[in-house]
């Protein structure tokens, strides 16, 4: 059985954010929206999870969006067309349960936009109306807006500095749309923790059901180690097998934030040694 995963296309979305199309038919054949892969790029390297941005069973491809945030993601970003991943395991995680009717609002923050894209296509195929909100710090960091827009009924772009679209956070735009009577029935948000926390707060206040995709530290990604445990509604879950999508209103974001920086010192050291600025 061939498990080779070869990069067949690579695009720079920003200076530090890359999109890869990977030929990995074995992973693509059972992939579903909301799932992720675990990759490794060197013999001494870490295993890191990466959300699946897109997949094509027909082409046998998996699309990933990766941002340089640490040593391993920098190594991934340095891969070029024709390179193969040392390890490429998946699909992992639980397929996200999507509604069959209503009006969904999808929110992507930074490179999290990559992870909401497969939901848009799937929701539309269910006959759900899709509005998307994409946010970034500034114009140059807005990514995948066109791609997500092509699978959305409406697209709203937000930048913190107002250099493109709405000036402010995605939650500001979300509130505006809700105030204007957008009639959203579901919300799915993927992005940095502060963004997902803010979306959780806003949607809870407005009574809008919301799911967020958590990205805790993982080792095996198959439910074996429990390193990725998150508290949701006072109960502990393993994000790798029970998630990564969870009810945003029940997630303990304080705990999730704290656990995310468990190895900050070591990560800083590893980046320094690799000559990466942080």
């Amino acid at each position, binding site marked *: *059985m061939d498990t080779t995963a070869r990069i067949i296309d690579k695009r720079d979305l920003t200076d530090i954010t890359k999109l890869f199309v990977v030929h990995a038919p074995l992973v693509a*054949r*059972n992939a579903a929206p909301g799932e992720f892969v675990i990759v490794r790029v060197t013999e001494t390297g*870490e*295993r890191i999870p990466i959300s699946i941005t897109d997949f094509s069973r027909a082409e046998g491809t998996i699309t990933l969006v990766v941002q340089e945030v640490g040593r391993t993601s920098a190594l991934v970003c340095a891969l070029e067309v024709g390179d193969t991943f040392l*390890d490429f395991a998946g699909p992992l995680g639980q397929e996200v349960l999507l509604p069959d009717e209503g009006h969904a609002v999808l929110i992507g923050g930074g490179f999290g936009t990559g992870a909401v894209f497969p939901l848009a296509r799937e929701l539309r195929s269910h006959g759900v109306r899709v509005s998307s909100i994409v946010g970034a710090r500034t114009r140059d960091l807005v990514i995948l807006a066109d791609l997500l827009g092509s699978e959305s009924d409406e697209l709203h772009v937000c930048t913190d500095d107002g250099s493109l679209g709405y000036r402010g956070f995605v939650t500001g735009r979300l509130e505006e749309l809700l105030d204007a009577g957008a009639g959203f029935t579901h919300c799915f948000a993927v992005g940095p923790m502060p963004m997902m926390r803010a979306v959780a707060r806003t949607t809870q206040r407005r009574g809008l059901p919301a799911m967020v995709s958590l990205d805790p530290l993982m080792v095996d990604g198959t439910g074996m*180690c*429990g390193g990725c445990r998150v508290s949701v509604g006072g109960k502990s879950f393993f994000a790798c097998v029970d998630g990564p999508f969870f009810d945003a209103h029940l997630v303990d974001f304080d705990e999730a934030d704290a*656990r995310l920086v468990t190895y900050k010192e070591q*990560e800083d050291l590893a980046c320094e040694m690799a000559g990466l600025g942080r």
Partner: protein
Amino acid sequence: MPIVYPHKTAMPCRDPEQRRRSWDEVAEGYTVERAIAEARRCLTCQDPVCEQGCPVNVPIRDFVRHVALGDFAGAAQVIRRRNLLPAICGRVCPVEHQCEAQCVLFPHQDPVGIGRLERFVADWERSNGTGGESAAQTLCRDEKIAIVGSGPAGLTVASDLAQLGYPVTIFEALHAFGGVLRYGIPQYRLPKEIVDADIEHLKALGVEFVRDVIIGKTVTIEQLMDEFDYSAVFVGTGAGSPIFMNIPGENLKGIYSANEFLTRVNLMHAYSFPEYDTPVRRPRRAAVIGAGDTAMDAVRCSIRLGAEEGHIVYRRSEQEKGARAEDYERARDEGVIFDWLTLPVRFLGDENGWVRGLECIRTELGEPDESGRRRPVPIPGSEFTMETDLVVIALGTNPNPLVPKTTYGLEVDRHGCIVADPQTGATSREGVYAGGDIVTGAATVILAMGAGRKAATAIHEYLQHRPQKAQAEQYRRGREEGFAWACEFATPEELRNLVDNAGEPGRDEDVDPHWRGFLAGVAEVFDDAGPV
């Protein structure tokens, strides 16, 4: 009874002070002289009861006799008849509960050091380059076998079936093979070079190893059988899901499941950070909860990671501990502190979310519980706080649910263990077998190998009889259809023609069994009706 030296020949070990900070193997193994001396303690019983204590029935008496005579290659051959992983078993088997517990010298004298001798023979064989049959076997059979999980159960099934000539593929979810031998058991107890050597040996037998494939996610068991053409599947996915205590503060930073802690250290080489990229917390004062083999592994790893103090915290007493005697003693020699009769009730954290302490309560032992061990009862008012900056929870594991959850019709019990026939490993799905921890819950390497051995035999049996069974089924259906056709539709002339032209039905093996059955069914009607 001849006079036997009452004590086991000692196995040289590295000095505890020196090994506390080293990942090199602790026990150095027997020298040739020591091995022969120990083997000579064996009485070579006519009825070797020790062999009944071995889950894979290694011919213990015979191999020990070869060692006593200095014929180590012969000893290796004898062991390999029953056990393909002797270097591993010689190191990790709980011999004091198995073969050595049966030894007739025991309890008046020390039993023969069977585990140490097995290890000696396997190591001798490896270093003398006679590692069993190295030539690739001719794969003479057509039926492909899929093995899910490359732990001890899977490796055993693979080796047995490969030797019978089946093309075997082992699927592993992680990036390295060996299962618990790789991620669980630390380097100082089982050097990974040994696991590598055994896997290379299986590759030489023609076994295909595929990593990064999570059966149940990447490919399901149905797909393996229907689309990838595997005739039988063995599930040996282990008890991979860690049990937590569900007490307050458990998700503080610095609290690990034993699986995570050991996986980071062993599989990911976190002890070599930053040379390797995966980090692990370097403790000052470690507390490991539990007292089984895994707990001993975790606490000894914490000491090697630099802990000034490594504690075992256990709610029962020394007597009830699950760890092997040898590893318990080595942990003690390495300065591990044992807090018996101590039950953690809450984890305490600092302002940054790091664990800083363990709130515990003392216990006393009451009546035996369902496990037969005396139940720990908290003593009111005995609460106290223990300072710690690393906690490892080693209270066991549950079966990994991935395969049962994604395989239709695979029966599991209330614990989530796959229900399998203890004699054959057969599950509720035809062609799907299971063994090891996924069936029994967390147990030992050698029990998993024993289950693998039985399953391999049963799979071979199943595949040999499967064509006959399938043919019998086709014949039966043909016969029913022939009978029905003859009764309902056929005219007497048609019947006569058919029967006359078909000759003697049911003799020729080349004839399609369905057609043979059909003719037999027709003939039945014809005979009943008499000559038309």
